[in-house]
């Protein structure tokens, strides 16, 4: 993978980081569609947590007291983005067998304008 081949991914990665660390602070606090249904139908309070998570509500609980909410949220967003990226690189490596430039002989022949396997 040359540096040039990855250059087009950089803007998407920058937007992703900006969304997670900056724009996330501007997120609407309105209930989302499902939360609103739960309020309307009066079952929102039934929700419970099975296991404690380190960053509930997308805030690092440990940082909230010391540094305040914005810092706790930025840290959670950044951790989430980096952990997702890292997890997927690992998963991708585990799943992919082929090496670049070696076409898979078992792959089906290219079809032109096929509607997809499920259509």
């Amino acid at each position, binding site marked *: 993978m040359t540096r040039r*081949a990855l250059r*087009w*991914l950089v803007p*998407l990665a920058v937007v*992703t980081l900006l*969304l*997670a660390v900056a724009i*996330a602070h501007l*997120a*609407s*606090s*309105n209930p*989302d*569609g*499902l*939360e*609103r*249904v739960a309020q309307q*139908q009066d*079952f929102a309070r*039934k*929700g*419970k*947590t*099975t*296991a404690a*998570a380190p*960053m*509930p*509500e*997308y805030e690092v609980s440990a940082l909230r007291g010391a540094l305040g909410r914005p810092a706790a949220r930025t840290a*959670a*967003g950044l*951790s*989430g*983005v980096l*952990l*997702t*990226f890292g997890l*997927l*690189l690992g*998963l*991708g*490596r585990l*799943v*992919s067998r*082929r*090496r*670049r*430039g070696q*076409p*898979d002989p*078992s*792959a089906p022949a*290219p*079809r032109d304008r*096929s*509607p*997809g396997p*499920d259509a």
Partner: protein
Amino acid sequence: MHIPDGWLSTPVLLASNVLAVGGLTWATIRARRELDESAIPLMGVMGAFVFAAQMINLPLPGGISGHLMGGTLLAIVLGPAVGTLVIASVLLLQALLFADGGLLAFGANFLNMGLVGTLGGYVVYRAVRWFAPGSRGLYAGAALGAWLATVAGAALAALHLGLSGTAPLGAVTVAAVGFHLAIGAIEATVTVAVIHYLVRVRPELFLLDRPLPGDCIATSAVAAHPNPNTINAKVIQ
């Protein structure tokens, strides 16, 4: 629209998790055949983007909000199998680290926000492109697939809640589908915006005779079409 634990009954949790394991098994087997090493960076960035976008609730009229779910987008860019693995990873991290969506409700959330997009939304996208070739079909298919997947996902979430006895099936379906008619517009807009960027920088990702996402990014695709305008002409007629 993540379902927390406590909303669904044991039989519904069991059924949705069994279906989810089935979907993940299919996706893993197929992704092993399809995923090219060169597609891994795109897989990582797209997954991180969907995670970040899911943090951002956009306000909608009526005092509600909605965020991207991303299944359809991931399937269009990465292929349905790899897209399914990516959305499952995002939802799993959200449940484990952010308490967004219950751990036991993972299967339900994966069906409603993952598979419904990576399979249902993707099939709609391919069908539209079949009928309408060129860039119009590409964008229309992406928008329609994303919108329908959001509405169908809401109906599926309502079905989970109705079957669990948490709320009356009819009322909860009407409410959930109603709100998600508008939330689907967010899904369609973000999906089309990201695809619009990728069409400009990597048009070969969207060639229909290259259904394997790895092949699309590999340099072989560029070598086969040394003139990028040839690719553009093929995708954007």
